[in-house]
């Protein structure tokens, strides 16, 4: 029985995990670093402890032991896909809410993972250790231990290969302590379609359908949805079967994600497996009714899955937008500051997973993801309309953010038609420009009403504008 869980993470995912733990009657133990001293996630826990780093497995296990936690949830990012935390948990007799260390290790090695997938009959892209045939160019040089675009190089012709491999290898050695690189066929304008899988410790593995995550910036997803507009029921069934085969190949335990790339002809290839909860897991939850964190806890307790594949259904459509503290119009540069106004949208079919609230401060120390806005509606069209309305109603001021940019993306024709691929933003560069037209006079009026009479060089409260008395003419 898991009674007390240390959440080895921060921000919205730490808050989200704490919510369901508290609902399950499980104590949520938080951790926070100095920059997160005032963070919302710290205050969302039953108790929270100061740590030096979210990346120190030994420290996290020590805090878990000292606080009496008998399990650790790694969230995503940080140590979620590092064997250091899972093995430290094993040594300390603490339940790691995730797959076995060996699974993490296997899937963290891209070459090993490719071999396993091929053996399991899961399609992979052609790959070479060196010198692919000239007809196969362009190719991608990838780090064996990599992820997130680091240690990756696109090579257009053979003459560039040697230099690209050397550069990628240096980057990989620095980034992942593993200089090995390999060469993979480059898929042009693919879709990124991933399948959620769950497996228990009794050998049951099933998939919970797909997520379309093609809208990316700098290899990072910003909008995800399910169902994918690209999948027919037949293709969904085939890919789902392959995702289950992939997970079964490593006797997968817990919640994980099998990522595929899907080309315009409906061919798909294993890309990698994420052995953890995914940022975009809420769209799966909204369309299936599962709570994936609840399932993770049950699986970690050794309980068998309470449903069969045939019990799982997709209902309606769900879209997630990631609300980042960044300026898309200025090459996605991150912004920092204090959130002065935070008014999220309300109404049916809206879910907000937030790591911030009014008054929260966003610093440069961590990822700029502030919150996730997730909507559900019976159809894709209605879900897009709901997302447009919700983004328009979302007021977040004090830290520059991508809310309006997201609004322009989901309002675009290309998005409406479901014509998505990983180069969507490159193709739709007009989305980076705010709508043309003169500044509305009302905006100048609003600014003028808020402006303090004399610039005093510091930031100024709005309230002093309203100090004039009742309406009189003198």
């Amino acid at each position, binding site marked *: 029985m898991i009674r007390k869980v240390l959440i080895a993470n921060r921000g919205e995912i730490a808050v989200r995990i704490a919510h369901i733990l508290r609902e399950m009657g499980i104590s949520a133990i938080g951790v926070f670093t100095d920059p997160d001293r005032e963070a919302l996630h710290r205050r969302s826990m039953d108790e929270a402890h100061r740590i030096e780093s979210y990346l120190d497995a030994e420290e996290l296990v020590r805090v878990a032991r000292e606080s009496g936690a008998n399990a650790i949830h790694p969230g995503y990012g940080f140590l979620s896909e590092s064997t250091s935390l899972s093995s430290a948990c094993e040594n300390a007799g603490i339940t790691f809410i995730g797959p076995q260390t060996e699974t993490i290790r296997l899937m963290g090695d891209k070459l090993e993972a490719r071999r396993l997938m091929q053996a399991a009959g899961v399609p992979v892209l052609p790959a070479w250790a060196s010198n692919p045939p000239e007809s196969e160019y362009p190719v991608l040089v990838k780090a064996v231990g990599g992820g997130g675009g680091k240690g990756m190089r696109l090579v257009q012709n053979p003459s560039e290969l040697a230099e690209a491999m050397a550069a990628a290898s240096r980057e990989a050695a620095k980034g992942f302590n593993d200089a090995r690189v390999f060469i993979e066929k480059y898929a042009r304008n693919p879709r990124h379609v991933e399948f959620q899988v769950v497996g228990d410790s009794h050998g049951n593995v099933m998939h919970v359908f797909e997520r379309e995550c093609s809208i990316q910036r700098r290899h990072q997803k910003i909008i995800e949805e399910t169902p994918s507009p690209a999948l027919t029921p037949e293709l969904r069934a085939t890919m789902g079967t392959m995702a289950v085969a992939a997970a079964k190949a490593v006797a997968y335990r817990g919640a994980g994600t099998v990522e595929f790339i899907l080309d315009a002809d409906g061919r798909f290839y294993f890309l990698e497996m994420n052995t953890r909860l995914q940022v975009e897991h809420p769209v799966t939850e909204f369309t299936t009714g599962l709570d994936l964190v609840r399932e993770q806890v049950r699986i970690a307790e050794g309980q068998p899955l309470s449903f069969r594949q045939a019990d799982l259904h997709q209902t309606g459509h769900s879209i997630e937008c990631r609300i980042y503290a960044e300026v898309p119009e200025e090459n996605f540069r991150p912004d920092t500051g204090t959130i002065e106004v935070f008014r999220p949208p309300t109404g049916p079919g809206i879910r907000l997973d937030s790591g911030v609230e009014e008054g929260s401060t966003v610093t440069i120390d961590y990822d700029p993801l502030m919150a996730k806005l997730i909507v559900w509606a019976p159809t894709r069209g209605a879900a897009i309309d709901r997302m447009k309305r919700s983004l328009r109603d979302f007021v977040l001021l004090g830290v520059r953010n991508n809310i*309006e940019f997201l*609004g322009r993306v989901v309002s675009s024709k290309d998005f409406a038609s479901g014509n998505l691929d990983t180069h969507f933003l490159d193709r739709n560069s007009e989305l980076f420009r705010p709508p043309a037209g003169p500044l509305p006079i009302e*905006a*100048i009026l609003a*600014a003028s009403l808020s402006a303090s009479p004399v610039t005093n060089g510091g*930031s100024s409260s709005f*309230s002093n504008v309203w100090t004039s008395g009742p*309406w009189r003419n003198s």
Partner: protein
Amino acid sequence: MTGRELHWRVDGQDVAVRIEESSAGGIFHIGKEIIPFSFISKHRHGGTVLVKGNPHQFYVVQDRDSHTVWLNGQTYRLERTGKGRALPATGHNGADGSITALMPGRILRIDVAEGDAVAEKQTLATMESMKMETSLLAPRPGRVASIHCTPGQVVDMGQLLIVIED
């Protein structure tokens, strides 16, 4: 009623505005436009302002001279340029001597006749609006050039009521 002149940088150009404001509304001067406004609601970070019959919900946050305005679902960023300065209290009117209605309301009394000499701050007329009586004062000494309303008349916001000339 307080008045202020402000300068903004908009699309690379300097825009000077003048705002005369009470707690219930005011008049906004931009370029040659004279735009009456009234508040539907106010809060610490903004409010809703009624302009030409349309409500505009806005939030503003200010960081030094940089103002971020959220207006009807769009965000705008404005830079303050020249120093603003508080102006002495004036009437409801521009510098041109025209007295306009700050709010929709009813004229209760007119205390002057055309041709009358008036002193600064002398009461010209009284109107009722939102259950409050309001005196319309002369913005400066002068002579009543013309009167454009009658007692009992219901007037719209921004409607010209009286003109003063030197």
